[in-house]
């Protein structure tokens, strides 16, 4: 496109040729696509009708949506997810650094940790924490604390340790992959500038590793939110437990399960949006131009921005 905007519509003969006439052709008709779309819609309609006509008291769901017990369960689920992830990330980073250590004892211990916690089901681990009182009868941290194990190991602590320590094994592998993904030349350049190991790790390596670490960690958070429903094994009062209790007491069992599913969906949706923006932040510098966020795109559309950005400039 040229910049001559105020030229007359009919260019003189010696002017550069006007843009070529666009091709006018009859597009191919995709009948197959229409048939496939109709078939999918029909199946969807049948499914929705079946659920609507089924023996489900749909009215109970909005009624209990903000039920105090349900909300308490939801709060506990979010709390245990958050805290287990914090334990998992902190311990995972430590394990990843241990794994790369030149000290053979620390690297081997880290390897065994990952081997054990990744190699056994989290459900079994939760039960183990719950029953560890058979091994340790008392907890005795001499001057400050002494108690029976069963009093000390509350359902909350069982759930937290079970989920958090298990997560640490996965996070360790994610962090290790992230640290290894950073080019060795980065370490050399930082060292050549006189930066210490710690500063190199903190200022140069970790920020770049984050780009590799954040997306799978987001998946882990979403996964953790759902895995946390297993804490029912250690009697922790989470969203699923609350939904089941309310359902049993009020005779709306299936309805409360659907309600719990809805809350899980809402929570994972919010987390996915957060993950999107976090990934964007750590992608800076890696691609020349970040694509606009959906919000920015919407704003551009509403303000009637340039619909054809190409050509000029």
């Amino acid at each position, binding site marked *: 496109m040229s910049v001559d905007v105020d030229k007359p519509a009919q260019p003189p003969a010696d002017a550069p040729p006007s843009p070529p006439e666009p091709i006018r052709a009859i597009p191919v008709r995709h009948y197959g696509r229409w048939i496939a779309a109709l078939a999918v819609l029909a199946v969807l309609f049948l499914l929705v009708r079946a659920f609507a006509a089924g023996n489900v008291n749909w009215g109970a769901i909005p009624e209990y949506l903000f039920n105090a017990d349900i909300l308490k369960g939801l709060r506990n689920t979010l709390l245990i997810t958050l805290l287990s992830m914090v334990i998992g990330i902190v311990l995972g980073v430590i394990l990843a650094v241990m794994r790369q250590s030149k000290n053979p004892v620390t690297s081997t211990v880290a390897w065994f940790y990952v081997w054990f916690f990744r190699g056994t089901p989290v459900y079994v681990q939760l039960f183990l924490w719950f029953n560890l009182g058979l091994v340790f009868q008392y907890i005795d941290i001499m001057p400050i604390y002494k108690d029976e194990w069963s009093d000390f190991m509350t359902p909350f602590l069982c759930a937290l340790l079970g989920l958090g320590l298990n997560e640490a094994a996965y996070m360790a592998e994610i962090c290790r992959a992230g640290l290894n993904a950073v*080019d060795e*030349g*980065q370490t*050399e*350049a*930082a*060292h*050549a*500038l*006189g*930066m*210490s*190991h710690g*500063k190199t790790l903190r*200022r*140069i390596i970790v*920020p*770049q590793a984050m780009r590799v670490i954040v997306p799978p960690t987001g998946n882990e958070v979403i996964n953790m939110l759902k895995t946390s429903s297993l804490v029912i094994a250690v009697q922790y009062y989470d969203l699923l437990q609350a939904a089941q209790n309310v359902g049993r007491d009020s005779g709306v069992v299936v309805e409360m399960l659907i309600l719990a599913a809805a809350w899980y969906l809402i929570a994972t949706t919010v987390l996915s949006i957060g993950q999107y923006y976090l990934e964007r932040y750590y992608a*800076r*510098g*890696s*691609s*020349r131009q970040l694509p606009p966020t959906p919000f920015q795109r919407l704003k551009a559309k509403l303000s009637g921005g340039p619909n054809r950005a190409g050509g000029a400039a």
Partner: protein
Amino acid sequence: MTASKTTSTTAGKKAVPMVRAEGVHKSFGSAHILKGIDLEVAPKEVFCLIGPSGSGKSTFLRCINHLEKVNAGRLSVDGELVGYRERDGKLYELRDREVAARRRDIGMVFQRFNLFPHMTAVENIMEAPIQVKGESKAAARERATKLLDRVGLADKAANYPSQLSGGQQQRVAIARALAMEPKLMLFDEPTSALDPELVGDVLDVMKDLAADGMTMIVVTHEMGFAREVGDSLVFMDDGVVVESGHPREVLGNPQHERTKSFLSKVL
């Protein structure tokens, strides 16, 4: 080796050499890369290292700032042993912090630039002065801006490395090294990864540095640069110094067969 130093820019009697290597050996496992390197680099000298790939030029360069550990021999920078302290005839290995402190004074420019991709050009240059020297942000930014101007990239301060061409990235990398005010600059094939038309800009910056009296050791395949700017030149092959002298003499009138056959391929 030292007899050829007549053209060095140092006036009068010789000061402490900036770099002195005596019988330096280096192996990686069973691969013997450096087989006894002896050489001296005087202050303010532009010292060029040429040779076929695999001859050990880059390895030797990396030994100078202790990115690689020397296996045998003595290597010193400005009178101080690299990586060790000598007391009562015994060698003590330096702690990581001490190694880092010595590296501050030695700038290094890499073949693949190695800019920090998550920082803009100006942030790349500010990073070490702030983190290592504890300079204030404002002071570091002011000097970084001046350095960018010096390498002709004042308008690229806010660009990320991925938005710069290879030649621009390499010039930012040189500015980044200069920000630490080094007494010695190491260049590891600084133009080998560049498109031919971008090589000139980087060489111009290096010539400018040489004219300012910076001590430079340059591993290069740019024979034109070596001839024009270099004060001494060493031809290495298979881990040993084959021939050394003034660039014009070595390049114009090589004495050894190996030098002749190498130069006949690259000139």
